[in-house]
């Protein structure tokens, strides 16, 4: 940019003041809120890379002299959880084994419910839906003891099937609502045309409605993956020792001490546990927003 003697301030374009008090206030607020959420993450990260001595030195925000990635390896494969010293990888695979089928099943059932409720109107459909919604508002802690009693009666308490069933059940209200609201915006005429063409309940669902509901399926899947992975209480109560998900194992790992608290290993294990939901959000976050928007405005 060249300047000349003629370019006086009076010729220059008037510019708005960048740093107004209001703007400073907004940025300060945003910085503060971000810090509130990011600082613990930072501390976690930093601590997980420290050596034992640096942890004992207890300088919270200090970056480690040399990052010890071995901590993560130790948390994964050799850290001690009560008597077994196999690291938290067992919990990881338990969670994976749980989350994938539970997500698929609950999303499928939620979509099926939403589809049945919006297209195949029956007298009791609306009553059922109201009861389901009521269930969504009841705190789930209330239902734990009855569920434990029933599962024990049924003989499958503390098994894989118990925890799978629990996650499916508790996903029903939200997912049914999600899909029902989505399908309500699909014109009835589409359904009628399919019926004239001879489509029955399942064919219309599988070949027509489900493909159409792709944005909602993505939203529901993201919700379920993160929700089920992050769950602690149900995993603790219903899964049984052999099926403890990663969250439960993490808690056990943190509580297993032989005298000293190994914060760096604990932090490493925590990071490993939260990695899956974090990655899901990072990579599919925009699909989530798109899906919600698509459900709201049918194009």
């Amino acid at each position, binding site marked *: 940019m060249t300047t000349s003697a003629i370019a006086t301030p009076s010729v220059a374009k008037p510019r708005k003041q960048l740093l107004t008090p209001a703007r400073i206030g907004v940025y300060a607020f945003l910085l503060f809120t971000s810090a509130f959420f990011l600082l613990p993450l930072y501390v976690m990260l930093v601590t997980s890379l420290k050596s034992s001595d640096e942890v004992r030195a207890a300088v919270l925000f200090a970056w480690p002299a040399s990052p010890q990635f071995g901590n993560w390896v130790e948390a994964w494969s050799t850290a001690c959880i009560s008597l077994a010293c196999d690291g938290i990888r067992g919990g990881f695979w338990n969670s994976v084994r749980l989350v994938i089928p539970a997500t698929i099943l609950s999303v499928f059932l939620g979509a099926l419910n939403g589809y049945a409720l919006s297209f195949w109107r029956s007298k009791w459909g609306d009553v059922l839906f109201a009861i389901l919604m009521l269930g969504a508002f009841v705190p789930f802690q209330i239902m734990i003891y009855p569920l434990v009693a029933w599962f024990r009666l049924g003989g499958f308490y503390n098994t894989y099937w118990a925890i799978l069933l629990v996650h499916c059940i508790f996903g029903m209200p939200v997912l049914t609502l999600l899909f029902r609201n989505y399908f309500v915006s699909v014109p009835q005429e*589409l359904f009628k*045309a399919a019926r004239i063409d*001879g489509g029955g309940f399942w064919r219309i669902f599988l070949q027509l409605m489900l493909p159409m509901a792709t944005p909602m399926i993505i939203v529901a899947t993201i919700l379920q993956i993160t929700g089920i992975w992050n769950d602690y209480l149900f995993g603790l109560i219903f899964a049984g020792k052999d099926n403890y998900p990663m969250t439960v194992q993490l808690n056990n790992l943190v509580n297993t001490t032989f005298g000293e608290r190994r914060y760096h290993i604990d932090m490493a294990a925590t990071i490993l546990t939260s990695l899956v939901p974090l990655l899901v959000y990072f990579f599919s976050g925009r699909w989530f927003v798109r899906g919600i928007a698509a459900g709201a405005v049918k194009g």
Partner: protein
Amino acid sequence: MAQVNVKDLDIVLGGNNILKSMNLEVRDGEFLVLLGPSGCGKSTLLHSIAGFIDVTEGQILIGDKDVTWADPKDRDIGMVFQSYALYPTMNVERNMSFGLRVARVPKAEIESRVERAASMLHLTDLLKRRPSQLSGGQRQRVAIGRALVRDAKVFLFDEPLSNLDAKLRSELRRELKQLHQQLETTMIYVTHYQVEAMTLATRIAVMKAGVIQQIGSPDEIYNYPTNLFVAGFLGAPTMNTFRGKLLQDNGQTTFVGPAFMANLSSYPNAKNIQTSEVIVGFRPENINLTDGKTSTNGNSGRISLIEPLGPQNIVWLTLTDGSTLSAVTDTQWHGKVGETISFDFDSARASVFDAKTEQRV
């Protein structure tokens, strides 16, 4: 190809008796238009014939089959909706062949039927496209094609052209008429546009509040409406109606209204009309405007508005009692707003209704 018979049909929806003892006979191969204002029950009747609404009482027969309780897919029907209702995740070819694939029709047969329908509707180049990549007119053609491939006995149309712009509407209207001429299948068509009814129908059934007011050919309905409602529903601008007395004197029948008189002797059966309190109706095109000087019957009015349409003009007159009269003139006629002008009627084409019952006499 089959006739459709609706016998004593009662439909109750949400506590409302939409159709009461509806009787309708659609002849084999005809194009029947159900015409009426919104809420008159025409869509309900169509959807009952299709099988989407449960029947409270009565029977529906397609051909010789009683389909009152049959599933829509077992009624041998094809249906075209106002919003096209195309399957958005499938391309045109799969949209059209969906029904056939469900019915497990052999692949070769599916291909030939789809090809035939596509060529009839000029869709051959569009078979691989998705509905979102088609224009409104193309989408509607695909919807028609989807109904066509089913080789149905009856085609049902639920206001299929209402979502299209005016030019496309008239284009597709002509194509539909040609299709009917080609296929000679029974077609039932619902609309509230009288132009569509007049141009497409073999017969029109005018409906009001769940009751068929009149059913007949477009010519019959237009020129010989059975009641005031039908008379007012068809024709644009609307038929001019006036209350007044009918005088019978020495073989001459005269209508005396508050603003003019009309000699109705050439009206069919004029001498035998018993009532004297009547409503008389003249369509705007049956009114002749003459200039003030050559009036022979003393009827005159003041021009209040002229609407030029291109091939014609609509002239609105204010009569001596304040009522309005509309007349259609050709382009040769010239006049100015404010001029007083006289008029007379083509009485043979008038309509006379009993003032109390509003029925034609």
